[in-house]
């Protein structure tokens, strides 16, 4: 009795699998069926809220002006890059790609390049005349074997220190500049804050990704640009003494941070500055969008500077787009790439988003960009450019994820010597492959 039951179950299961296989055998050979129904460009981004979404609307406007016959289709998804990338990958794998999609410029695009999911767009660089207007450092970083796969729409800087002037005043620290020549100097200032105003968090930080962000600025400061870059091509040893020293500094810095860091994103952490609850915050230059929305003025209420020990270095991250392999509407994708790299597109988008154009032929002052944006653009032209780990310029998606795991394990643990050793070991493993 029992045996026949099992047999029946297996039989039924096999039958079902057979049915399923039949149902599925039809291949998606006819993707691109939409291409006949008028021109359009489906753009996949995770710019779904806040100033990013507003910036996207600016680009849409430019697209409408320049290419009135191309319809914009927003393939944007739920906020947050994590699930967005996942969804994108699934679409690509299913053979239903959007025409163009957002990707962090640099290493993060590597996966798509290796998977042959994005096309070489060097021809477009020539056609749109981009080779002359993007900084050479940036183009070098985007070039692989003589090919370029992505076109950046905007550039952010990750290594910025933000400081609350009222708090500095109360602690008797200088209020004219927040530039620190080294992490050690910075730690001395943090100690002063701790001693003078024990109620104030010396350095505010948010959840895991913000901590990785902090770590990368410490690595840049302690190693310097060449050795930092070496971390990603194997010429600097992740397991070496230099990195160990930097990690110790990072651990030290974490001891000055807020206990509730893991329950917040970057924004509440930066918000602590304007509430007078924290003195310093190291975060990318999307912070002014927050501070300005509260009517705070740079120089009067807050200071900014390159993060401690990184003056003259521009830790960049950029959003970029590419032409998808098998894009249903190639012309649409090219129109989009033209728009996001054009003067009008970059001005419209970046002014709203708070980032700076990747193009260097734009007069930011004349276009009404903020004072911070103007200074950032100056640095972008003159500084040494290095890539961000957290934001995908210097690390692949997997490396970034592994770094996040390792850092979270460290900062939620005892943060002792054993923890440090594990952190270093895991980081080394993450970047080994």
């Amino acid at each position, binding site marked *: 009795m029992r045996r026949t*039951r099992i047999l029946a179950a297996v039989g039924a299961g096999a039958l079902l699998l057979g049915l399923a296989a039949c149902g599925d055998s*039809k291949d*998606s050979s006819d993707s691109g069926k939409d291409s006949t129904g008028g021109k359009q460009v489906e753009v996949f981004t995770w710019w779904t*809220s806040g100033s990013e979404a507003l910036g996207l609307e600016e680009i849409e406007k430019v697209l409408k002006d320049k290419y009135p016959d191309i319809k914009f289709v927003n393939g944007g*998804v*739920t906020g947050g890059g994590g699930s967005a990338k996942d969804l994108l990958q*699934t679409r690509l794998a299913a*053979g239903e790609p959007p025409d163009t999609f957002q990707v962090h410029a640099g290493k993060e695009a590597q996966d798509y390049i290796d998977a042959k999911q994005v096309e070489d767009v060097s021809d477009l660089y020539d056609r749109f005349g981009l080779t002359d207007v993007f900084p050479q450092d940036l183009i070098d970083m985007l070039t692989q074997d003589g090919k370029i796969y992505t076109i950046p729409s905007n550039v952010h800087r990750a290594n910025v220190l933000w400081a609350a002037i009222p708090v500095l005043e109360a602690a008797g620290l200088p209020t004219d500049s927040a530039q620190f020549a080294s992490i050690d100097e910075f730690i001395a200032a943090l100690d002063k804050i701790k001693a003078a105003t024990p109620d104030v968090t010396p350095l505010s930080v948010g959840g895991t990704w913000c901590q990785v962000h902090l770590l990368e600025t410490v690595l840049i400061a302690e190693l310097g640009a060449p050795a930092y870059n070496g971390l990603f091509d194997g010429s600097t040893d992740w397991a070496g003494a230099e990195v160990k020293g930097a990690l110790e500094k990072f651990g030290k810095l974490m001891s000055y941070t807020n206990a509730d860091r893991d329950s917040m994103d970057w924004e509440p952490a930066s918000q602590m500055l304007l509430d007078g609850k924290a003195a310093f915050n190291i975060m990318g230059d999307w912070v002014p*969008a927050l501070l300005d929305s509260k009517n705070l003025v740079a120089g009067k209420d807050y200071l900014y500077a390159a993060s401690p020990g990184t003056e003259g270095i521009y830790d960049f991250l950029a959003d970029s787009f590419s032409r998808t392999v098998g894009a249903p509407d190639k012309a649409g994708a090219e129109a989009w790439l033209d728009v996001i790299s054009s003067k009008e597109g970059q001005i419209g988008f970046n002014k709203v988003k708070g980032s700076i154009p990747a193009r260097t032929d734009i007069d930011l002052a004349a276009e009404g960009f903020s004072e911070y944006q103007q200074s950032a653009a100056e640095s972008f032209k003159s500084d040494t450019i290095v890539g961000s780990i957290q934001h995908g310029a210097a690390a692949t998606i997997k490396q970034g994820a592994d770094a996040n795991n390792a850092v979270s394990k460290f900062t939620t643990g005892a943060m002792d010597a054993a923890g440090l050793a594990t952190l270093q070991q895991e980081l080394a493993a993450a970047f080994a492959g």
Partner: protein
Amino acid sequence: MTTTALTGHFDATKVPEAKKPNAGFDWGRLIRYGLLLLFLVIVLIPVYVLLVTSFKGVGDADPSRAWLPPQEWTLENWKVALLGSKSGEYGKIFPVLPALGRTLAMVVPAAIISSFLGSMNGFVLARWRFPYANVVFTLILFGMFIPYQAVMVPLYKIMIQMQSNWGLPSGIPTLALLHIIYGIPITTLIFRNYYQSVPQELMEASRVDGAGMIRTYVSVVLPISIPSFVVVLIWQFTSAWNDFLFASFFGGNAETQAPVTVTLNAIAHGSMMTNYGVSMAAALLASVPTLVVYIFLGKYFVGGLMSGSVKG
């Protein structure tokens, strides 16, 4: 024993509670109510925070002031959450109102169709059996327990193909279909258990009359299925309404296509600035429809559970 434990007590609500011969002040009663109130307060703590924060202005809505009432009461958060915001002080915020409409359009057909499928399956498996009905039941039931993430990748491929080959519209219709399919196991389970508790004679009688299966189902079974339909509908309504995993994969555009959990997530965890007051107002708004269902159907929910749907 288990299958018959609760059989035939549809009138349990009318079972009189034994009156305790009790003279004087009823201390037990006081303690009981005291405890009930205490637990009520504990349960409502998060709701309190949601509520007061939703009425707070921008600086006021901060974790450090979570317990304090608003310095100034404002309806602005509710307005922005409902209708959205294009720019200005609040930046870009997706409106919850149209998302509620979309979610309703997804949940109602999904709940009704999967309930009917479950009811038919349950009837067949409980009362119009065929060889290996138990095996079939087990195979269906197992579907309830799969971790959906485990099947997400191949599932996505299938759905994309259905969309491009059969013209299945993405967004709400796709999600409704998924909720119907993945609702089948639990609706089948509940109805089967219910029908098994219905006295066999009822159906035997119609069988003797020579009524066919469909006629028996329509004229005998359906009319007595109301209690279970309430339970199943509520369950399906809630789980489809609150689903985030499927919604985040198949919901499409968070502003124009997706159900409310996705919209809410975009408001609360958008990649840029979060407005707590608006997030909490949106969170409450997103919960209103399910809440309404519980308030108005809560009594029938318990009643339905009682009438034989909860047995192991």
